[in-house]
């Protein structure tokens, strides 16, 4: 039986994870690299748009239904790349670690490809388990509590998500007599305004906690600081996008009128931008700072979504990709620093640029990408989002733009305290600069940042049609 490309994206990592347990310890890292590289190649080679449909549970109308369009393609490629880079960044780990990462990748692929609500939900939940183990077993000093908080908080939101999905499911069956979880027929469900609002806010809770949107973000700093490097990378680069993807794929198309009423969510996004940025200035833990910066960046992404116009939504998708690249790179860099000094406290660093100029240069590029310097990827996403925001409500753009000042503020402050200045701690004086493996990890992300920054036309083009479809449903 020839498995279709999309299914392979799920199967290869899962089988790989199982194979991990049979691999001898010495070869585990290499095997994991091979498996994730194969997944990445498969992801890049995906033809889209495409659909795969298999019967799964006919009794309740659930199908194994995967679709890929421009949006899914970008996110799946990002996932596969980040998995590979995360594995490359974690040599000498136990086999179970790589198995967990691969399972995580499979789950994420499932989330971004699923077109069946039940399948989506299962994958949405399924990723929590490997992530929990990654944090709880391989994390830092307070890992148990952080993992616990992460999983309980996220699952609580998912309950609301499930309720929303089931309400939709039941309503559809009440209207047409067909019980199905397939997204396409569910799009035609007619809901009363109150039901639509109920379902919207139920789904909102599930996605908002995942993103995380203010004020549901308090699980994120702990989860990020306690997670191992590869875990943080996957969490930031990929898992946070599941929430925004959920909004784009499900909330907006299924519940257009309720989405149109949700102006408050744009305001909430702006709060996240400013709050996340401002609070970064007080952080003393390197990873915690980047975690809060993620809250701020994803504020931009959600703002883009809730402009409800094609400019804002396209900008949001591109910025989600950008955030994955730049924040993923930042977490990888923290990981490199942590490998050398085993501390996340900013005050333990200082003057690293002198001994590690390569590291300093890569950090600077990641920083500039993150704060939206033109000709790098961050600017393309941020500017398009601001454009969309201005089109929706000029005041949204006017307030959100303050975020770029804050971003420069905390990022340059971080850079100054860790990389610049005199070497205050003797331990920082003779650290090795980036090695071959580390350059290998950083290079694709740098290259991709520059590509998207200078020539984003391809990216705008491949998401144009799916975004158009979403906007069409919002403003018929």
């Amino acid at each position, binding site marked *: 039986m020839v498995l279709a490309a999309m299914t392979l994206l799920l199967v290869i990592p899962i089988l790989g994870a199982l194979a991990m347990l049979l691999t001898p310890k010495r070869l585990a890292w290499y095997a994991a690299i091979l498996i994730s590289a194969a997944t990445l190649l498969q992801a890049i080679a995906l033809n889209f748009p495409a659909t795969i449909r298999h019967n799964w549970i006919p009794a309740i109308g659930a199908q194994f239904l995967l679709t890929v369009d421009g949006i899914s393609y970008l996110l799946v490629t990002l996932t596969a790349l980040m998995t590979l880079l995360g594995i490359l960044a974690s040599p000498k780990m136990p086999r179970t670690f790589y198995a967990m990462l691969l399972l995580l990748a499979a789950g994420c692929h499932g989330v971004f490809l699923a077109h069946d609500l039940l399948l989506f939900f299962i994958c949405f939940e399924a990723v929590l388990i490997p992530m929990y183990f990654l944090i709880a077993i391989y994390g830092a000093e307070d890992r148990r509590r952080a993992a616990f908080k992460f999983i309980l908080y996220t699952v609580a939101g998912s309950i609301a998500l499930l309720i929303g999905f089931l309400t939709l499911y039941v309503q559809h069956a009440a209207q047409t007599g067909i019980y199905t979880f397939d997204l396409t027929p569910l799009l035609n469900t007619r809901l009363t305004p109150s039901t639509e609002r109920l379902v919207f806010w139920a789904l909102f809770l599930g996605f908002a906690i995942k993103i995380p949107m203010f004020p549901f973000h308090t699980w994120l700093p702990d989860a990020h600081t306690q997670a191992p490097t590869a875990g943080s990378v996957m969490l930031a680069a990929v898992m946070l996008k599941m929430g925004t993807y959920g909004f784009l794929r499900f909330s907006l198309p299924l519940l257009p009128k309720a989405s149109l009423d949700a102006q408050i969510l744009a305001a909430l996004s702006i709060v996240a931008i400013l709050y996340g940025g401002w609070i970064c200035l007080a952080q003393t833990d390197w990873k915690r700072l980047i975690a809060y910066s993620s809250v701020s960046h994803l504020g931009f992404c959600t703002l883009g979504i809730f402009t409800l116009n094609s400019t804002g939504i396209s900008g949001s998708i591109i910025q989600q990709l950008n955030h994955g690249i730049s924040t993923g790179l930042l977490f990888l860099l923290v990981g490199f620093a942590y490998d050398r000094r085993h501390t996340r406290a900013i005050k333990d660093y200082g003057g690293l640029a002198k001994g590690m100029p390569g590291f300093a240069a890569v950090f600077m590029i990641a920083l500039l990408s993150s704060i939206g310097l033109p*000709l790098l990827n961050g600017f393309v996403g941020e*500017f398009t989002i601001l454009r969309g925001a201005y089109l929706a409500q000029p005041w949204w753009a006017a307030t959100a733009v303050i975020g770029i000042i804050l971003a420069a503020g905390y990022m340059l402050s971080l850079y100054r305290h860790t990389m610049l200045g*005199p070497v205050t701690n003797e331990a920082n004086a003779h650290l090795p600069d980036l090695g071959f493996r580390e350059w290998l990890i950083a290079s694709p992300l740098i290259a991709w940042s520059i590509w998207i920054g200078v020539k984003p036309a391809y990216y705008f083009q491949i998401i144009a049609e799916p975004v158009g479809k979403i906007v069409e449903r919002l403003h018929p």
Partner: protein
Amino acid sequence: MVNLVSNFWWIPLYPFIGSLLIAILRRGGAVIGPAAILAAFLHGLVVYSSPRGGALDHTLYQWMPGIAFRLVADDLSLLMVLIITGVGFLIHVYSIGYMDKEPGFWRYFAYLNFFVFFMLLLVLASNLIVLYAGWEGVGLASYLLIGFHHDRPTVNRNANKAFLYNRAGDAGFLIGTLILLTAAGTTEFTAINQLPGSPLMLVAALLLALAATGKSAQLPLFVWLPDAMVGPTPVSALIHAATMVTAGIYLFARMAPFLAANPDAGLVIAVIGATTALIAATIALVEHDIKRILAYSTISQLGLMFLAAGLGATQAAIFHVATHAFFKALLFLCSGNIIHALKGEQDIRYMGGLRDKMPWTFRLMVLGGLSLAGFPGLAGFFSKDAILIAATQSPILLAVGFLVSFITAAYVSRMLWAVFFGVYNREAHEAHGTMLHPLWPLAIGSAIAGYFGPHQEGAWPIMIASALVSIAGLYLGRQIRLPELLKAFFARKWFINDAYEVILVKTTASRGSSTLNWIDQNIIDLLPRATAFFTSTASLISGWFDSSVVDGLVKTTASAFSVASYPLRLAQTGRTHNYALVIVITVAISFGWYWLQ
């Protein structure tokens, strides 16, 4: 033969490739750096002097939806190109000597070329977004160069300060751009300059003006420039005198028709310029650090340029940009020579009598200073007059302009006297080679550039008045004794920087974010914590219920049996004859009952 004119868009590429080459090779900065700039200059010269038939433009590609990566070359942009690459080339050459034996030599030249690339992009941009790319890019290069000696702590703080104040302006730039993009459907200058005025357009103009105040160090965003002097002196000369800080004025010049359509914006810009010019001039009068004197002088002169641009006298403004580039760069490089000769001394109170030790630097610096002061006949005189003539529209602004001229001459005189005259007690050697010869073209420019500028008619009254003011200022500058209170006020920079430090840094950034952090961990986190507390309490209650009530039922049932069986247990005495008794009684009873039946 390659058509250099239509391929004008190569001009920014020379420094870009130069920067990349130096960065990859990590050497050859001394050769590649200046060579790239020279190539750009020559190419620019060819294009400038060739018949063009209007503006040239070239679209590289569609950058973002509706935004093209497009460059345009007209008289304005080409003039800027020549200034940037001309002065830039001289400063690159100067740097070879100044930065000699510095670690990170290649890095310096890579950054410097990188800067020129972005500056050229800025002036050749045909729309606001490409300009913004150059705008932010020069901000980045400025940050990298100010922070060049990044192992010194204060340096990094000042580099951050420069970037952040610029960024604040950039936020305004983006919103202004968005307003214009929505109004005109495009960010191309040609389209924007045709937009009619309206209140919304006024807002956009003011936002762009805010950005310009950031880049050109005017109120309210000027406090970064004096602190930027911690960078190497050639950097101060190039970026913070001749080129980057003129970007704001360039923007006004580029959008002159738009500003004309919204005259209130121009008024605001003019007032900002005049005010800043005055404040900065007074501070320069009491400063002791030679570079900071020149920095405040730059701010002041930029204020005059703002004044001109705001009043619609674009030509005058650009004229002054050009002359200022010459004499300010000359002044900075001369000061660089002095600092280099005195092994890092920058305080003019510890200088003196260098006239004999450094004769050429003395003559060059005096020339530059006189030009700055507007000594009649020199370049600065003519360009400043052009501004004053434009200011005749408003008596107040004119008066401020004259006052600024007077104070300018005064601080120039004060500085020159303190540095070159009096008793010397330091060892100093004259500059030579690459640190001297690039100064000649600058000197020539400071002297005669004025004759190439736009001609004014009926300017005689102003010219005479400004000549008198200039000479008076130069003469009196040495003797001015300010009241102590005023002196202290100026020395504390009118408390503006202090105000920013308290409001922005200590309160908003530091306390504000710490408070927010506390709120996040203790108040916002209450949401999950309260839920967790509620859940665990509920589970405790449920647990209690389960073990006491539900299980109690089971236990009660069990104990009922146990209790009931107790009396029955008593029958098992273990004694045989008790059992025998029971048997006998049972038999007796059953017989008796049977018998009674």
